[in-house]
């Protein structure tokens, strides 16, 4: 197992290198010049050139790449072109909101979706099944910002129970942290509830006719134990995969929710950096997202062994 983990971790190195090359080239080859953005409306060409020179953007592209790569190997991701802060500082300040939102979303989604999926499978073809699957289709179809604005209207503006927007760090008070996390997490969880419930239903249905389920029932197991101890455990591998991918997607892809609820997370940082052509920040966050994807995939693969003893590494 340890050998497998080590091999997988080593395999991330070429993946990260390819991502680094790709991101670097993609940014340099797409239109947009941070120097022109920094220079502003009153600048002339000479002033833009001066800024380009100071940022090192007039160096040959290969020189720029190798300088950047060498700095990364020394743990230096550079300084943002715009903020007078290092990229590491910027990312560090944005990780908590994104992690909190992602984990809360997944917790809500799993807590709701697993029982719903199992229930839909158990009641296959009944009204309950149709309601759950109907909700699932709706959850996929309604854009996240529509759900967000609707929940804001109801719970913040009409009922005045929760704030419209903002994020409070956990260190500044758990009550406020939770209060501001509820609406965005619920909003974002809708699509994951739909996804996980659907996957759970399908996977559980696949195993419901297996011999070991029949045996469990024949031994007199109560139905709830049959469903959750035997069926769900054996159906877990595809569900874990979906949950794992969901976490990875959430860490990099909650831009809309972060915008609607004003959460200063990595998604907004990425969008702001892209709009401003802040190369060092974009490069670092995309590398980080790639690393998260790779590591979460590894964790998902390792988790399979917990649920299916036949899987060995």
């Amino acid at each position, binding site marked *: 197992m340890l050998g497998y983990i080590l091999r997988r971790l080593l395999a991330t190195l070429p993946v990260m290198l390819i991502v680094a090359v790709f991101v670097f080239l993609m940014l340099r080859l797409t239109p947009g010049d941070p120097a022109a953005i*920094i220079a502003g*409306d*009153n600048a002339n060409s*000479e002033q833009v050139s001066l800024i380009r020179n100071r940022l090192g953007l007039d160096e040959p592209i290969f020189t720029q790449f190798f300088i950047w790569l060498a700095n990364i190997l020394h743990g230096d991701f550079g300084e943002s072109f715009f903020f007078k802060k290092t990229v590491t500082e910027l990312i560090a300040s944005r990780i908590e909101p994104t992690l909190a939102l992602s984990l809360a979303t997944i917790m809500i989604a799993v807590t709701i979706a697993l029982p719903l999926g199992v229930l839909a499978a158990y009641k296959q073809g009944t009204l309950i099944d149709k309601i759950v699957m109907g909700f699932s289709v709706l959850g996929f179809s309604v854009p996240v910002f529509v759900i967000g604005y609707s929940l804001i209207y109801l719970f913040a503006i009409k009922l005045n*129970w929760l704030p*419209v927007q903002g994020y409070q760090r956990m260190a500044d008070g758990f009550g406020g942290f939770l209060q501001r996390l509820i609406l965005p997490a619920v909003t974002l969880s809708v699509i994951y509830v739909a996804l996980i419930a659907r996957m759970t239903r399908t996977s559980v249905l696949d195993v419901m006719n297996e011999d070991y389920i029949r045996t469990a029932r024949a031994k007199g197991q109560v139905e709830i134990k049959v469903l959750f101890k035997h069926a769900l455990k054996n159906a877990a591998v595809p569900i874990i995969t979906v949950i794992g991918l969901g976490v990875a997607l959430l860490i990099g892809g909650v831009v809309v929710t972060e915008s609607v609820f*004003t959460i200063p997370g990595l998604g907004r940082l990425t969008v702001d950096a892209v*709009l*401003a052509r802040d190369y060092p920040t974009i490069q670092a966050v995309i590398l980080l997202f790639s690393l998260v994807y790779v590591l979460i995939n590894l964790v998902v693969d390792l988790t399979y062994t917990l649920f299916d003893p036949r899987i060995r590494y």
Partner: protein
Amino acid sequence: MASRSLKTIALFFAAALTLCGTAGAKTLRVSLHSDLKIVDPIWTTALITVNHGYMIYDTLFALDEKLAVKPQMVDHYETSADKLTWTFTLRDSLEWHDGAPVTAEDCVASIKRWGARDAMGQKLMSYVAELAAPDDKAIRMTLKEPYGLVLQTLAKPGASVPFMMPKRVAETDPQKQITEYVGSGPFIFRADEWRPGEKAVYLKNPKYKPRSESASGLAGGKVAKVDRVEWIWIADAQTQVNALINGEIDLIEAPPHDLLPLVAEDKNIELFVFNPAGRQNAIRFNVLHKPFDNPKIRLAVAYALNQKDLLDAVIGTPKWYVECKSLFPCGSPLESTKGWDDKFTSDFAKARALLQEAGYDGTPVVLMQSTDIVSLSNLAPVTKSLMEKAGFKVDLQAMDWQTLVTRRTKKDPPNAGGWSAFLTSWASVDILDPVAASFLNASCDKATFGWPCDAEMEKLRDAFAKETDPAKQKAIAEAVQMRLIEYPTHLMLGQYVQPQAFRKNVVGLLAAPSLALWNIEVK
């Protein structure tokens, strides 16, 4: 029952949060048009950084609400009879936020750093023979020849304001950002609480000595009446409005015009036009390449367009805009429509005649459209439609604003990655006269993007700069406006204002050319 429990929990959290957060201090929470990314107002022209500058720095002179120049940090000033020597004496007891006294040497260093970056500052410095501090309170500026815009330049609002900084800070290379944020203004920046992408925090400067006059525009007594100001960055306009309605913020600097009816419906919210001068839309030409290398073809655009259609497309209701054919903002001292009354009438016959006279050969106009700035994006399709009716061929190319600002630096032909024209807008305070308005700079390669090249225009701008008599300045400004017909560098496409939305418990908002958050109380 469950609902009641949930509500109780929510109320508990809300109460706990309120108790933790306020502790009796008066806080003004505002949502501005952008996130504060850069905090050096000399290094960037970003409007959000200018707003930040007015919070923590002060200026030697400032414009009042009628756009008249008034002394601010300066107590009094003298001019020699030959108008070559200006002596500015600082007010007593001015202090930096770190407690050190403000000295003339600090101001000299500040003017020099700003003068190295800002176009108007560069112009002023090109007339300066010596800038010195003969004592702690006197700044002496000796000119090579009389310059008519000394006070206007030192009081300039808008992009790149001459803010005063301590000498050690002002001696930072103008091409690099400062790293210390010490001013002498009415608020103190809390760098430790600044979270880019989230919020910026300012505390009342208890040692600030406001002028005795009442506050007017950016001049007069800047009295901070709240203990703390929080700039909360809310990227989504609808969320800004929701937060205002819910009382989570007190003021929105720039709610989009299409959301104003929603805001106005709420009985706890009011609208206020803080900057009556507003902004002017403009189309900028690239004169290096066909078809706009020919001034007559550029003038044909003025006949093809009309301001009403363009303003309707981006602002909507006439309540917030004014058709203004003056080169210099309507409502400003140099306002005049001389020479332009017959333009912007969508007189397609006249436009077609001009095109024929100029020998327009059907070369497509590459018109750049920015798609991500609400107040600009609809201008381009309307412009295209009107120009096509006059006989132009228009190639509308959509892109985000950042791509546009990059592409506009390219001098390549339009069909090889360059461009012919783009649409933008200017704060009216940035175009108050021929020297300030950088689109009128026609010094060829040294001009801003579009690179107009016209010796006559430059001669007039220089004459304006040297003239010290306001009546003669006005006459020169009119001559510039007339010259624009012969040699259009750009065209003015109407003026609009941006109301602020605020909760009714906020009082004391000031009409000013830039955002002024002093004088405001939260009841």
